[in-house]
């Protein structure tokens, strides 16, 4: 299961161990990851947040650095 301390931390990615029974014919999956973007931890958006420059915002997909959530494939690490 997810470690307790990790659950509340504002980490963009979390993991859990997939249960594998001795009677399971398939090979164990091991660990699976799930995305936890910043908006889960921000709640109602505060006023006057810092903003990206327009061109940078277009590249990054959000106007606010607080909500920027870059995805790198944890399975490829």
């Amino acid at each position, binding site marked *: 299961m997810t470690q307790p301390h990790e659950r509340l931390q504002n980490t963009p990615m979390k993991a859990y161990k997939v249960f594998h029974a001795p009677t399971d014919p398939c090979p164990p999956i091991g660990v699976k990851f799930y995305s936890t973007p910043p908006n889960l931890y921000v709640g109602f*958006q505060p*006023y006057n947040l810092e903003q990206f420059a327009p061109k940078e915002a277009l590249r990054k997909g959000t*106007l606010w650095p607080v909500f920027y959530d870059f995805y790198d494939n944890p399975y490829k690490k």
Partner: protein
Amino acid sequence: MELTQEYYSLLEDIQAVDFVLVELTLYLDTHPGDVNALAQFNQYAAYSKQLKARYESLYGPLLQYGNSLGGESWDWCKAPWPWQV
């Protein structure tokens, strides 16, 4: 119509400004009282209109059905199309 560096930078400016307008619209939907955001929105809306007027004067219409001027000749179907740009 030759796709110069200026063409691409102007198009990128329009895309960036319009993206900011989308973000601000969504923000203002939940924060209607935020006057700073509203001022920024109006500023970007005016700037977007200005950029698009400039683009259309140089490269032709962006929208159809009267949302853009027709220009000297009715040649909106001439290349390049958006996916060719």
